[in-house]
């Protein structure tokens, strides 16, 4: 992510240090994660110690300070999804992507996460890819669906 883009985001909030969380959220949204270089720019422009920016960036689960892939896969492990075979689904996703929950593949194509409930319990087992819900998935179906992502 280039510094101009970060600069634009910061300008949008008039460079107010009190908008730190909002600025980090916007960068995270654009870039999927918060590289150290981005935090350094934010720290400089907002005139905040880098340590304080890091403190905030590591505090919230919404932020990631490690690389996240272009596509984010959320496998629901809620009770309803669990009884409908979420575990088999997760294992299939791990097999296809070659990564475990919490990991990102070396090409930064996929990041895998398990979530506790997506609130679509009637559609289980549910997988969300880049915010799009895939309902009542079977391992074979999710394997096909994942192949479509570049």
């Amino acid at each position, binding site marked *: 992510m280039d510094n101009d883009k970060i600069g634009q985001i910061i300008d949008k909030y008039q460079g107010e240090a009190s908008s730190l969380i909002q600025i980090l959220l916007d960068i995270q949204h654009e870039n999927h994660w918060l590289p150290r270089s981005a935090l350094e720019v934010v720290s400089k422009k907002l005139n905040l110690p*880098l340590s304080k920016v*890091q403190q905030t960036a590591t505090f919230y689960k919404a932020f990631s300070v490690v690389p996240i892939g272009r596509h984010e896969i959320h496998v629901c492990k809620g009770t309803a999804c669990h009884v409908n075979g979420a575990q088999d689904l997760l294992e299939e996703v791990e097999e296809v992507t070659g990564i475990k929950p919490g990991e990102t593949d070396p090409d930064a194509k996929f990041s895998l996460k398990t979530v506790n409930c997506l609130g679509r319990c009637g559609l289980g087992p549910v997988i969300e890819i880049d915010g799009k819900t895939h309902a009542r998935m079977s391992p074979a179906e999710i394997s096909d669906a994942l192949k479509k992502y570049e």
Partner: protein
Amino acid sequence: MGEVTLTIDNKEVKAEEGMTVLEAARSAGIKIPTLCHHEKLEPYTACRICMVEVESRGRSELDTSCSRPVKDNMVVRTQSEELTEIRRTLLELMLSHAPDARELQELVEEYGANRNRFAKEPSFCIHCGLCVRYCAEVKKKNAVVFVKSGVRREISFNKEIASRECWKCRECFELCPTEALQTAYLLTEALTSDSSSFELEPDA
């Protein structure tokens, strides 16, 4: 500022308005244990070991004495069965993180805490925040901060700031009730030692 009179452990204590219960108690020679308190820093209420019973409107409530302002006719108890129980449990929880912490040992004896009540998860830090707050409030450097959250929360030195500021200061070391701070610092030192900005220790 006006003067108020309160009762601490059945003893009449005079205090200035705006003082905390802890300050009033100490001025009267009444001992209340503390771990995260420091005179130069704002009350933080992290360790909760300074918990006392405050009687108000006929009921007794629990509050941290380091943050509770004194009030006229206030009735405070610093020792009771319940408080001992609370302090003992707090100590037992802290011991699971920092079993050998210097400042805990005396309190462990006093409150009869069981060292092995909780499984050991030695992070060597009890999250008192003394180093973090001292660096931010007194030194205004923010070289050491808390990172992450919940059970993963830990102190972390920022390499750039630490390599500039820490050698000549290191005032936070003696505040640490455990050895965690020094360990974290030494780790940062190790990570930055190949950078030329880091001078050799003068007395090494």
